[in-house]
Every structure is written in C-alpha cells, then in structure tokens.
C-alpha cells in the first residue's frame, strides 16, 4: 500500500511516498530556513505563504521520484493536521484533501508527534516496541515510552523552552546566527565541555525538562567573564543540555523496561547528543537507535509512515477534518 504524506506544520514543506509504513519510495523536503534566518526564528505568516508556493511542486517531485505517474495510482493521501502553526497546517491539509477529492482515495490526518515516533520504522522495519523515545527540536521536547502501536506513555515534556529553542537563543546571544543547533555543535567541537559548570536543571527529578534557566546562566556567565572563549561556552552549554536529555532518556527506559532508545527531532542531529545516547545505551545494556538526520527533522515520509498505521487502526479521516494547532500526543 503506497501512501503520499504531506508535512507543512512549521518551516519545512515536505512530501513523500512510503509503502506499507516502512519503505520510503521518495522524500522531498524544501526547507525555509533561509527565508526565516533574517528574523532569527520562524515567522508564521511567511511560513504559510511559502507553503502555498511550494506544496504543489514538492508533491509533484515526490510523486515523480517514486515513479507515480498519477496520484490515482496511490492508495491513500495523508497530511499532518497538528500540532503546528495554524496557517501552515491549513496548506498541507487543503492540498491533501483536494488530492483525495480528485482521486477518490482515502484521506488520513496524522498527528505530527506520533509521526516522529514512527520515523524509526522507515529506517528499521523490524523495530519492536517498547521504545523509549526522545523527540527534541525547536518546537518540541518530549520523552515518550511507546509501549505498543498507538499506546504511548508521556514521561516528560519541557516546562518552558524547547531544547532547540535553547540552542537558538544561546546561539543568538553568542552571535552565531540562526538556526542555532548546528552553529553551536560546530563551535563546541573546538571547546572544552568541562570549562563552565552550567546548571543541570531538574536532571534527577522526574522526567520534565526546563531550559530557560540555563540560557540565563549562559548570559550571566559571559557577562561576568567576557574572556572565556565562545567555544568553551558553547561546549559547556551543549554538555549541560545533552547531560539532562540523556540522563532522563535512560531513566525513562529503565522505568518502563524499554530495551531500545530512540532519538527524533532536529536536535537529534547534535553530534554530542548522539554520542552520549550511544554510550549510555551501551553502558546500560540497551540498544540505541539513532535514525539518520533526514528522518529526525520534519519530513513527509514520517507522515506517510504513521498514516499507514493510523489507517489500519482507525480508517480514513472524513473530508471535513480541519487542523489542530495545539494537538497533543494521544497518551494512555
């Protein structure tokens, strides 16, 4: 069964064709990073306008790359309906419903967070729950135990900034530009992670995260010690974030008895986070599953992948389905 998945929840316009929730036949992502860079963050109205321009060419490329000559050859059309920016989500949902209407194929709405959980199957078709999954990006910070398909236990979330937001804010403060994650990762490679002992907020209490205090600590430290090399600040900040993320991921896996650790979201590209999670998995006798970057950041394949599982569980979505900007992960 071949499904087209469309993703327009934030600043990537993406579409992909995936077979049976596992085999990626094509995946096209058009990033708007450069469009938003002058503003230091995603501007919702600009994102929505760009999605309108890009969604059709991106869908067309995804169909072509998958060797689909006509959308009617597919088996279903899926789109992310939330969570995300309302105006941006509307574009993908409208395009998917218009395609479903013209082809007569079923439409499937997909929860963006659930789609991140299902990205793992695109790389590792034999992945078996339970999994302890950490999804970290500019928009989300969640720690979830996936006990089975459709059965999720929300272990923790951020109480203030998302992890990726903390990277962006600190990068902006250090004059490294936007997006901050890759910039800090690069600079940190030349720095000393132990140079500054930044606070590890809530590391050993529960599973929720807090990153706003860490940003303030970085600002205060640099003001007080202007001579500390920026690379040391970046490496020490990164270490503090990664330390908290890794500690909680391993603790959640232990509590839930999950033998596999999984990373998702744009921050999963962070080289230090990948290294620490791999080490921690080995030390605790678990397996780390670190999907390639293209599956961690927002993409259409994860939407098409999750749609296959959703379609099997719930059937198609009626064409009067709208968008849900503050949709949560359906937990137990």
């Amino acid at each position, binding site marked *: 069964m071949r499904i087209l998945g469309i993703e327009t929840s934030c600043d990537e316009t993406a579409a992909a064709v995936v077979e049976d929730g596992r085999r990626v036949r094509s995946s096209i992502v058009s990033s708007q990073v450069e469009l938003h860079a002058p503003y230091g963050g995603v501007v*919702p*109205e600009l994102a929505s306008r760009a999605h309108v321009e890009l969604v059709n060419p991106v869908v067309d490329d995804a169909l072509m790359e998958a060797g689909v000559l006509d959308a009617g050859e597919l088996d279903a059309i899926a789109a992310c309906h939330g969570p995300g920016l309302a105006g941006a989500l509307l574009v993908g949902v409208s395009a998917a419903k*218009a395609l479903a209407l013209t082809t007569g194929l079923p439409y499937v709405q997909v929860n963006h967070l659930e789609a991140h959980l299902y990205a793992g199957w695109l790389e590792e078709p034999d992945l078996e729950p339970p999994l302890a999954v950490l999804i970290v990006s500019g928009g989300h910070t969640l720690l979830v135990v996936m006990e089975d398909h459709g059965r999720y236990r929300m272990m923790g979330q951020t109480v203030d900034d998302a992890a990726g937001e903390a990277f962006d804010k600190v990068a902006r403060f250090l004059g490294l530009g936007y997006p901050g994650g890759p910039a800090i990762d690069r600079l940190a490679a030349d720095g000393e992670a132990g140079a500054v002992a930044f606070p590890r907020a809530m590391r050993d209490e529960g599973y929720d995260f807090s990153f706003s205090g860490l940003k303030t600590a970085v600002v205060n430290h640099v003001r007080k010690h202007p001579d500390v090399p920026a690379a040391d600040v970046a490496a020490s900040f990164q270490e503090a974030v990664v330390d908290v993320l890794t500690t909680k991921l391993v603790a959640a896996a232990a509590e839930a008895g999950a033998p596999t650790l999984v990373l998702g979201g744009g921050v999963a590209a962070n080289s230090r986070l990948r290294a620490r999670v791999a080490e921690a998995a080995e030390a605790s006798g678990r397996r780390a599953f670190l999907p390639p970057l293209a599956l961690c950041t927002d993409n259409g394949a994860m939407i098409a992948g999750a749609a296959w599982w959703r379609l099997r569980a719930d059937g198609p979505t009626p064409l009067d389905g709208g968008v849900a900007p503050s949709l949560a992960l359906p937990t137990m």
Partner: protein
Amino acid sequence: MLLLCLDTATPQVSVAIGDEGAVRGEIRLGRGRRHAEQLAPAIAYLCHELDVELARLAGIAVGLGPGLFTGLRVGVTTARTMAQALRVPVVGVASLDLVAYPLRHTNRLVAAVLDARRGEVFHARYRPVPGGVQRVGDYEVGAPADLVADLVAAGEEVLFAGDGALRYRAAFAEVDRSEQAGPAYAFPSGAALVELATARVEREEFSSPWELEPFYLRQSDAEIEWERRQAS
C-alpha cells in the same frame, strides 16, 4: 464547458459549478473561519448532486482576494492542487471584482469594500461599462476614513458593496449621494466568478496551477515590524 468556481476570501465559503457561463449549482456557507473544514465536502456535495464528475471539468476558477489570509490559502491551495491533479487550467479572479460585477447595471461609481479586520478594509472602485465593470485605480487596503475622504473629494454618486461597506456603514454614510447595495452583495459572488472565469477560459487567459498565488495586498506583521526596525 464545466467550471468549478471557489471563493474563500471572506468568512463565506462559496462553491459554484458553471456550465457554459451559467450557474448549474452553488453553495454558500457563512459560518466563518471554517474554510478548511467546509470547502472539500462542499465541492463533493455539489458535484454529487449535480452529477458532475470532477474528471469532466474544463477548468478551476478561484477568487484570489484580497481577503482573509487563511481563507485565501485554503481556496488557492485547493484550486492549485485540483487543477494539477486533473491537468486542467486554473483561472484566478480578484475577489473585489466579484463583489462589484453583480452591480454592473448601475450608473454610479461602485465601491467594493471587504472587511480586512484590524480597523481596515480592502477596496477598489469600478465604473460600469457595457457587459461588465471596469476597475478605476488600484486594489488598496486602508482605514475606512481614508476611503471616505477620497470619495468625498471625488464628489460622485457611489454605490457601496461588500461586508466591509456594511461593517463601516456609519462612516461611509458621510459620502453624499451614496447608497449601500445591502447584505445580498456582502460577499464575492459565485455567479460572477462563473461568468468572468468562463470568459477568461474562452480567451485562454489562464495560468498554470503553480503560478497562481493569493493576492495578499498586505505584508506580514513580522515583515512590517522588521522593516520598521531596519529603518530606525
């Protein structure tokens, strides 16, 4: 020649199917801000009841605004995608033209005025000509008071149409010898879109789906703010 005609530039969702320039059927839903939910089911219902298979459409027409951004994006994305999938041409018409066109039999100046929220209106002026209306001046966005001042200075008899004209009817009453066309003319007309788009398709004045874009007329708030900061 069957045309599917959509306009979602205002709180109203409008879907019409035209056959050789005449309206075969039309749906108007005025629930506001439900464009994404209502548009596809409305198209499906209308086609079903009129026994029109989508594959028989000769083209898709859509109101491009100016209007409410989210509504516009739903209509334009739907039109672009359907046209792409069906491999038919797409025609975009300014939504203000669709407000003015039904008043083409007047001999007054027509001011088409749509509510732009935040105390502003989208507007354009039209003069009746044989077979239609001709726009005089640009499509604009601004405060009702500015439009009133311009119209008072022009000193012409004015016929107001559109939901913006109704919302600010007290302000527009300042214009001497003016009149409101009334609630029947509050929103872009599906029949007008059928007529205007049919003529365009016959003249082969259509675009490829990917060229079609909403007519925003207004920058995003972030751009305005950013330019202001750059200037200061």
